[in-house]
């Protein structure tokens, strides 16, 4: 068997060079940390409860350092490992747990959000119309409401004389408006707004009474 060692050598060198460029770079400069994810044992938690946070590393040279942070609540020592225990604050809302992973070659960071439930009732204020206002029967009015909750508002409900008439989905702003609400019944009318919180479904409400002055519908 006649082997061409020269060709074989060139081919081997070319292949080896192609394959080992990145490895060579790693070999020379080291490998910076690469985080795969930050997992939490719970993503929704009651005030004062604890959860475990663990960062999973995909790649990187040892040794690595871990720097943990949070936007509220408390990290319970030790906080220098790949996992920590976090205690939720007493105030509900959205909080972030953050971690930065460092080695000699560089850093990588990630955060994860957790909801702390609030069992306080939503605050609701019916800002317009004013208590005791006068309206004409069948007149269309606008009802302005301010509503907030640490977990956000899931839904707002409008009751006229204790009958559910309309619902609005919650959003990030505290200001809501029910538009073109027709007042069909003459006499004193109770307008009640009920807000339901996200996560805990606690309820808050505000109400006023207005006067609806009766009319006989005019000729077309």
């Amino acid at each position, binding site marked *: 068997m006649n082997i061409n060692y020269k060709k074989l050598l060139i081919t081997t060198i070319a292949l080896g060079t192609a394959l080992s460029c990145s490895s060579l770079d790693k070999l020379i400069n080291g490998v910076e940390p690469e985080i795969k994810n930050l997992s939490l044992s719970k993503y929704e938690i009651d005030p004062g409860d604890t959860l475990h946070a663990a960062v999973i590393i995909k790649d990187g040279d040892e040794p690595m350092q871990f720097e943990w942070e949070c936007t509220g609540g408390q990290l319970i020592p030790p906080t220098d490992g790949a996992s920590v225990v976090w205690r939720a604050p007493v105030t509900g809302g959205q909080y972030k747990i953050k971690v930065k992973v460092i080695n000699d070659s560089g850093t990588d960071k990630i955060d994860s959000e957790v909801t702390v439930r609030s069992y306080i009732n939503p605050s609701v204020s019916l800002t317009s119309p004013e208590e005791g206002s*006068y309206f*004409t*029967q*069948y*007149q269309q009015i606008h009802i302005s409401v301010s509503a907030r909750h640490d977990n956000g508002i899931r839904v707002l409900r409008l009751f006229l004389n204790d009958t559910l008439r309309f619902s609005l989905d919650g959003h990030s702003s505290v200001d809501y408006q029910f538009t073109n609400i027709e007042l069909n019944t*003459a*006499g*004193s009318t109770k307008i009640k707004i009920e807000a339901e919180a996200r996560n805990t479904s606690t309820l808050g409400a505000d109400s006023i009474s207005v*006067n*609806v*002055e*009766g*009319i*006989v*519908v*005019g*000729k*077309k």
Partner: protein
Amino acid sequence: MAYRFIFKLSTWTLGLLLFISCAKITRDNILDPKNPDSQREQKVLIEAFVNTENPFEYNELMLTALDSLERRHPEKIEIVAYHRNTRDEVDPLHINESELQYMRYLEALGSNFKGLPDVFINGASQRVQGASSSESALLRLEEALVPELQKISKYTIEVETTVTNETITPTVTLARLGSNSSPSLVIKVLLIQTYSGQATHNVVRDISRSTVINRLSAGEQQTLILPNLNLNGIPANRLIIYITDVDEWEVFQCCTMEL
């Protein structure tokens, strides 16, 4: 001789004094149209559009409230009622002219929201619509009336009439008060039949055609013979005369005359 001289001197002195004092007479009577500061209290015209032939009591409640309002301000307001057909109910006191009046006021307010009772104060200056109780209606009427009662008018009206069996011919003398000339104006006359035994119910039975006056100078008076109002057997007992702008949106002055 001395007496004669003294007599002549005193006559001349008296004459001179009279001349000087006459020349210096100031027109300080506020009711004198030639006084540049002249003015009158504005009598407020309240026009209620109602229908009393429906099963609801809203219109009657408003008329009761208007009755109370008239008792509170007897010298300062004139209340009239235009009866109007509704979508479902015919009112026998409906007249077509009142429909135009109603539409005119809605146009002034940019509204197409019809419904009775509907009350307009000094034209479309104020509007009070609907009633759920006579107390609430009275409260709202009083609130709306406040700014109108504070208005001062630059017009005064006097009326005479010639009455036959079938027609009434009003002769109106109109004066412009104050120091400025007026814009073009419209004079209108309402023929009223008062229904006793009910809430205030000065029902408009006929409306004169609009009479336009192009302009009045400060202090100027004009006397006009207005178009006839038809009695047609109506036992009318009053006229309401009022001045308004050419669009007939705002009333500037009104007065009444018993027949």
